[in-house]
């Protein structure tokens, strides 16, 4: 992939009355992606609200107290938190243009993220195999959907990470790849943020 030949016209009309001088692609992309994350917050809020309304509708099936394991939840929490940090350190390496370090940190983030998904899938399959699948009750439907949607987002992140690692390997750090790494890191941090509320509202409040 060729790097961008930046069509650079020096702005001699730097006008102090410009409402927002940051019309460059980087700040526009960051703002736009942030807005998408805000819409995702509302999406998760809807799922949380649904969980809150339906979490006691167990219909004779198991309740949260019966099926949640805090040890699994705490491991998942730690894994995701570590991966959030490794991701941030990856972008930091990009700032310092250390290509090998970038690959290392993101590979680590990937491994952690994949472990998170694996543990979650294990938790889900265990529930399904013992007969407590999502069609057992409204409670289970809302649990699987809320936690599963988060897990799906993480999975999308994993695929995205692979694409990013490939782009960095092939093109190095360019204006475009740096921008995309930052955007990815926003996404990944956001997922850790949502997880705070999942482990608190679903798992912790679920066992008390």
């Amino acid at each position, binding site marked *: *992939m*060729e*790097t*961008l030949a930046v*069509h650079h*016209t020096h702005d001699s*009309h730097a*006008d102090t*009355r*410009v*409402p*927002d001088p*940051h*019309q460059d*692609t980087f*700040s*526009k992309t960051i*703002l*736009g992606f942030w*807005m*998408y994350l*805000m*819409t*995702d917050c*509302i*999406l998760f809020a*809807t*799922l949380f*609200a*649904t969980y809150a*309304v*339906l979490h006691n*509708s*167990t*219909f004779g099936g198991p309740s949260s107290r019966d099926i949640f394991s805090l040890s699994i939840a705490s491991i998942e929490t730690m894994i995701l938190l570590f991966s959030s940090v490794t991701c941030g350190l990856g972008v930091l390496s990009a700032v310092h243009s250390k290509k090998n370090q970038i690959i290392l940190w993101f590979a680590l983030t990937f491994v952690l993220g994949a472990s998170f998904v694996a543990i979650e899938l294990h938790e889900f399959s265990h529930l399904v195999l013992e007969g407590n699948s*999502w*069609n*057992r*009750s*409204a*409670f289970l*439907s*809302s649990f*699987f*959907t809320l936690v599963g*949607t988060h897990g799906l987002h993480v999975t999308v992140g994993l*695929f995205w990470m692979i*694409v990013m690692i490939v*782009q960095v390997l092939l093109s190095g750090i*360019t*204006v*475009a790849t740096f921008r*995309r790494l930052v955007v990815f890191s926003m996404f990944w941090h956001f997922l850790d943020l949502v997880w705070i509320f999942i482990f608190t509202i679903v798992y912790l409040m679920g066992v008390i």
Partner: protein
Amino acid sequence: MFGRLTLEAFKHEPSQNFAVVMMVLTGIGIMGAITYSKKWKWLWDEWFTSVDPKKIGLMYIIVALLMFFKGFSDALMMRLQQALSVGDAHGFIAPGHFQEIFSAHGTTMIFFVGMGVVFGLMNLVIPLQIGARDVAYPFLNALGFWLFAAASVLSLFSLAIGKFSATGWLAYPPLSGIEYSPDEGVDYWIWIVQIAGIGSTLSGINFIVTILKMRCPGMTFMKMPIFVWSGLCAMVLVIFAFPILTATLVLLSLDRYLGMHFFTAGFGGNPMMYINLIWAWGHPEVYILILPAFGIFSEVVPTFSEKRLFGYASMVWALIVITFLSFVVWLHHFFTMGASSGVNAFFGIMTMLIAIPTGVKLFNWLFTKFRGRVHFTSPMLWFFAFVLNFSIGGMTGILLSAPPVDYQAHNSLFLIAHFHGMVIGGMLFGFFCGFTYWFPKFTGFFLSERLNIYAFWCWFTGFLLAFMPLYMLGFMGATRRLDHYEASTGWQPLFIIVGIGALIILCGVGVQIYGLFMSIKDRKKNLDVTGNPWNGRTLEWSTPSPPPIYNFAITPIVDDLDPLWAIKEGHAPPQNKNYEDIHLPKNTPMGLYIGILSLIFGFAMTWYMTWLALASFVAIVICLIIRLSGEDEHEMITAKQVKEMEAAHLSKQGAR
């Protein structure tokens, strides 16, 4: 291989066959005409792969108008049925088909006509009004359009292949759940709305960032045209409300596809939660439809009153207050679901409050006209019709906002009359106003004003005849969505009047179509040479008609609310005089491809064609990765070329 799709899907009620045949023939006719005139390459290069908001805006409006025919046909069928189907007579539409018709009518009108004209006009007008050359995310904008178009095509498929949903435009469970609606209808509805909704959300993000970041020098927030403000507020509603819809549709899908129990009648499900969530989206949605219409009036009224808008600041605050309030009123759509009086009263009061900023706007428009020099052009006629019809509809809304009254009138024809006053009297009349106002700017020629006026009077008369009796019918006990009733009710005469009203509207639509074709035929005789035929105030009127691809050869600098009148009055700031190289984004077919793949995906999911759903989904992902891996590519128009293009425009003007 074909999931649950069988040849049965191609068999329809007799009353449906006609519609299917007409639609297929129309489609073949259009494609034939394009082939005959050898325009496919032109369409591909200039339109299908375009990322120019002016083109995208026109495409939105074209799709919206085509979908209007579908939605209006539904309305005509319903009113004809209701005029005839009394006592022993049962009209010509079977009950099952009738249910599909009213479901399709609402879905089409809201998602494709309403959202289509809103996004269409915003694409056309907003970049120009803020002095920008483009939107913030040209590709995302195009993608939003193609998802919209894909959803509309899917809804056309639902007419011809299989059945559409019979559960209304909002598909309440448990009726819309898998147990009571196992067939493909609700699934069609889900994917149509889901795909369109995602398109809307992406476009919403695009326009907000465009308005926040791409205004020309000097255009502070309080110097933006009100149409831009109304677009900003509407898009804020879009990005915060549509995710609720997305999530709720996912939950309904999970119930239907994976046997989950969010909204089922048993297993702990709670159908009332669906109604709560869908209206938490649904109420902001109706404000998304109306705010841009308010914005249009704020542009047209001052221009045709030769007077600045009265109370600009209060207009802005009214928009902001309406935006906020529209998030806290949603329960008024289900007062009768049985909440306690405290809950109902709270939402009733919040609903009544919205009347205040709305009234402020109405009075400001009227004050703008006071002591102005009013031109009774067809856009102004639409405004006056709006004042009458929207006010009546709005006042009945205040009536309905009192829970005890709503208990009597909920889901009666009184309600139908109220909200059609809002969407037709408000949104549609606003669109017609804006359409006739901006038409010369974007096409370069004029619509026949005479035919515009005839069409207006048909619509105005027809609307009153078709909807005022509904208030009476509602009080007489007529509920909505009736395909048959007893003669002893005494309703038939009123239903006949309503049917006549619908036919008069049909005449209006006919005049509009005829007018459009005649105007296109005579366009060379009715060119807009000045670019500013109405002595407009805002920046779009400073460009040629139609504007060049780059909008402005030199980015304007403004210092005033009405920049063009400031120039006339001699106090505009000095403008840059040097042409610069202009960078524009390259055309791309990716939006179209992803749209087509989404259409296939929606169809496959509806018919349980798992392999096809998976394949199209993977293809969409691949397209996205390709698109988002490329380097930022632009086309460049050199300063010299810009200068030549501008000189050509000026000489054409001079030659007249």
